[in-house]
């Protein structure tokens, strides 16, 4: 996959994870430019390569990688790509319907959602621990 294709793929997965369903074409150049500046993945951090591989795969692996990065690699390349994607999405006119969306159900509706998200986060972390933990300890299996 070439750089643009890889950026497109990563950005599409990130946009989906962040709740954006619209077009992302306008952001790809910027995303590719910033991630190209990031340089090579640091050696000796096998989980970082795996995090990015999981991101390109999308779906549950990408979410597992995101949960892992939030706990154990907060300043790593995946986390930086996520923040970048969020920043790019926030600039779009439709951001109020996606990343900036606020619900209107009041506190009664908010608390069950918090509990559900918290439960999902814990389950994903439990699944991510052995996979990314091994990669961190023993190298990059990807």
């Amino acid at each position, binding site marked *: 996959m070439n750089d643009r294709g890889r950026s497109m793929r990563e950005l599409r997965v990130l946009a989906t994870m962040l709740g954006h369903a619209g077009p992302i074409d306008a*952001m790809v150049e910027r995303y590719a430019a910033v991630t190209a500046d990031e340089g090579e993945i640091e050696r000796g951090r096998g989980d970082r390569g795996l995090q990015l591989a999981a991101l390109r795969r999308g779906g549950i692996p990408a979410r597992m990688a995101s949960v892992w990065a939030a706990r154990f690699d907060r300043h790593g390349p995946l986390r930086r790509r996520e923040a970048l994607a969020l920043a790019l999405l926030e600039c779009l006119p439709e951001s109020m319907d996606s990343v900036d969306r606020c*619900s209107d159900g009041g506190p009664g509706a908010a608390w069950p959602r918090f509990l559900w998200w918290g439960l999902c986060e814990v389950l994903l972390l439990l699944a991510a621990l052995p996979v990314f933990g091994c990669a961190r300890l023993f190298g990059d299996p990807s």
Partner: protein
Amino acid sequence: MSGGVVVVGSGASGVAFAARLVAEGRPVVMLDVGRRGPRPQHPDLDLPGLKRELADPHAHFLGTANESLILPVEDEDEYYGFPPDKQHVFSAHDRLPVSSRGFTPLLSFAAGGLAEAWTGGSYPFNEAELEGWPFGLDELLPRYGAVARDIGISGADDDLARFMPVHDGLQAPIELDRHAALLLADYERKRDRLARRNFVMGRARLAVLSEDRGDRRACDRLGRCLWGCPRGSLYTPSIGLDRLIGRDGFDYRPGHFVERFVADEGGRVRAIVARDEGGREREIPCDRLVMAAGTLASARIYLASLAAQGLRDVELGGLMDNRQMLMPFVNLKMLGRRYEAKSYQYHQLAMGLDLGGAMDYVHGLVTTLKTAMLHPVVQNLPFSMGTSTRFFGEMHTALGLLNVNFSDSPRPENRLALEEGRAGAAPRLLIDYRPTADEPARLRRAATSFRKILRSLGALAPKGMSHLRPMGASVHYAGSLPMTTRGPEDGLDPEGRSRRFDNLWFVDGSGLPTLPAKNLTFTLMANAYRVAERSFLA
């Protein structure tokens, strides 16, 4: 040019000083680097509308070179950057290299200076806070009113009057959003109980118009404050400067970086040495020099001038700044509520907490910043980015940010000095700052009190989320050449005049003898009026 009054710098105090003189028909020359930012686009659109209309929204919000993009970085002290439209305010100048310890300095070479990026807080100092100053509130209060009438300040005579004197010229306060209105309603119900804790709350006093004023229009809550008010509702010194440019007697000269002044043997400043945009050195004669370049830049000019006279070892002690603590909180009654895009983005409410004595008064400003960029904030939440974003969406309307200001007092070890550069290189400004030993206990005490008070107002402030900003981040610098009745040679008399040079005045923060826990800009403007009236118009 044949001398006259020369003002260096176009910040809030310089513009106020010049405006006062020009209003009385006195000529003024203003020397300034004078960088300008972009003009606001689509000034009548709110934020969602602006996003729709902009040809390149990414360049507008993140910058053409992504200069406002904040990505996760280890050991980062600040977690919010400046928006692209404000980059010109803080961009460095190669003629003013700075080296600092314990201090994160910000300097401005913009037309309008540092207050181009202020949030408009206009809180007068009270009598107790002026203890140790060589003049009392009676000299400042009428000037607070005069400044308010000239630039437009909104606010109310409410409980905050306990800590902030009420002056004339106030416009009605700006409209509260639902979040702020709920907090204030809760406070009003519990006022007596909170008063026993020495706590008060009230409407923010802001240099923001609630009524139209000439070509400036009242705040229409477009939600674009962070990128610069497109309607001119929020006063910035460049608005005052633009009003002065073209008036008889006002000669504005941008593109001048002032290196030093030249004095004769009798202790009188006779000229200013400045570099123009081409780097050429010029000597500009002056009869009276008024420094308004900002505390740090003015100190550098002063020290460089002394060094040129052979006084190379002079240091200026007593540098001060307001330590600031950011305390995010959640108003539980607002959880999951509908988002109001139309709201004023900075401080709608202000709080005062008396911990025992004038200088232990702590001032909090409640900000909502609903339309700020989320990505720097969301990346600090302890969840995956997707969950953090959804979580933030649910909490967004309920979130508030309490910006707590702490006072500072002068200590000789907090000093400014100049280090000569290598041949041809500009001298380096050295800044040393150490907080007092009791600072951690003082901050903890205030944080605990505010946390309890917020809880009684139905809001939670998680302990781990509070953020202590680095010293220097508030940009309320003061105290390097304090005004005193009797004091050191490198200081000022009560009229703001240098003790070393007869015809040199300072109207910026340099002259403040102490620094109460409030934004100093309003006081600098009032003091600039005072100096103009007492020393130049009397």
